[in-house]
């Protein structure tokens, strides 16, 4: 049995029904553990004080904002190559989640930036590229909503996602070129840090609950995508039934 069997909507819904309670339960467990641990049982940072704790929302949301687009890109490619409808619907289902993650990352970043940098917003490369990513999400969602025919919408948004990915990467480097940053470099996932270099990495006291939070956000994303894809399939089925009724 191959993984493509899950492209069958009926099979997908049945499987998702089986998995969903487990995934959402695990997401809830991780998020509650990670956030409670992060917010109440970690020491204050010696320089940033208690504001450092927003990291438990900011970093996972920012990670998911990028990875949601990546998942949409993969799903769009699968739709273009193999034309499995569930794939296109999964991409559609992921877009608003990604957009919300982008907003969370931007908002928590602004709240964090105010006490640390003395400003809510700076035209820093990382901040700016996230704003552009948010525009990409908005355009993608708007295009899905604007087109009536489902297959046309799936085709067009898939191509937009492909072209948009190239331009998103391009923008990322363009804004780097355009302005030097205020935002710190990567300090959670670093090759040196993984190898045990403790100079420039987040201390273990903060890193462990952070990884639990990241796991929680990933699981939450998976659960939401499964749920929303199911909803999309059912909505489409309802529309088909209604259309059939009108004809009969």
């Amino acid at each position, binding site marked *: 049995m191959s993984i493509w069997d899950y492209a069958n909507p009926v099979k997908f819904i049945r499987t998702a029904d089986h998995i969903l309670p487990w995934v959402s339960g695990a997401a809830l467990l991780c998020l509650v553990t990670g956030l409670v641990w992060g917010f109440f049982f970690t020491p204050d940072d010696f320089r940033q004080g208690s504001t450092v704790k927003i990291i438990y929302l900011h970093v996972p949301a920012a990670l998911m904002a990028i990875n949601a687009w990546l998942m949409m890109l993969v799903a769009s490619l699968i739709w273009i190559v193999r034309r499995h409808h569930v794939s296109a619907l999964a991409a559609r289902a992921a877009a608003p989640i990604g957009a919300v993650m982008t907003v969370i990352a931007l908002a928590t970043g602004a709240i964090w930036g105010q006490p640390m940098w003395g400003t809510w917003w700076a035209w820093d490369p990382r901040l700016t590229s996230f704003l*552009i990513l948010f*525009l*990409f999400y*908005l*355009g993608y969602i*708007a*295009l899905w909503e*604007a*087109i009536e025919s489902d297959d*046309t919408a799936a*085709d*067009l948004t898939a*191509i*937009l996602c*492909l*072209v*948009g990915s190239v*331009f*998103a990467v*391009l*923008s990322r480097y*363009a*804004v780097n*070129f*355009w302005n030097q940053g205020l935002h710190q470099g990567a300090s959670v996932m670093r090759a040196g840090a993984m190898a045990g270099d403790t100079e420039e990495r987040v201390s273990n006291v903060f890193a462990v609950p952070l990884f639990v939070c990241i796991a929680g956000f990933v699981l939450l994303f998976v659960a939401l995508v499964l749920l929303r894809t199911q909803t999309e399939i059912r909505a489409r089925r309802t529309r088909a039934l209604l259309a059939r009724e009108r004809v009969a």
Partner: protein
Amino acid sequence: MIALLSRDLALAVRAGGGFGLGLAFFLIVTVLVPFGVGPETALLARIAPGVLWIGALLACLLSLDRILALDWEDGSLDLLATAPLPMEGIVTVKALAHWITTGLPLVLAAPMLGVLLSLPVEGYLWVFLSLALGTPALSVIGTFGAALTVGLKRGGLLMSLLVLPLYVPTLIFGAEVARRGAEGLAVSAPLAMLAGISCGVIAVLPFASAAVLRINLR
């Protein structure tokens, strides 16, 4: 393809409203900026390259509707699709016609409007050059946006939303070239990036536009 190009050009010139509109809009933006930020010469000179670039980009955005929408409405797009021309060729010619009617006048007008913004003398060449290199990319990207939204009622606003993030890299590098040129700094790195974006976009994006147009004409 040459016939198609001359037809599009003739339509743009004779049908009115399209050809001069972008230029007029460009003029309006340039004239309004000093009213908005004040007539201080030093300040104007500093922001002039950026303002010229933003004005050109907005003027370009304004005229994107005309690339495909009119042909879609009167059905000539369907005829073109059945003509013995590859769709990629059609969208390339459409983008070229848009650039000749919108981008080229903007490029030629920009140094003139630079006078109004007291652009430094060193800047004229670089504003001209960066716009000449960058506006073809704007036209090609815009054609992709127009092809995406061609069948939609009131697609203009949606098209602006779709095209805007795609314009960001071109705008950044184009304005960077113009700014550095005006300040007498080295321009080779952003110039190379701008040329790279233009060439890459012209080489690849017509295929995406053609695919999108085929889907929309299905």
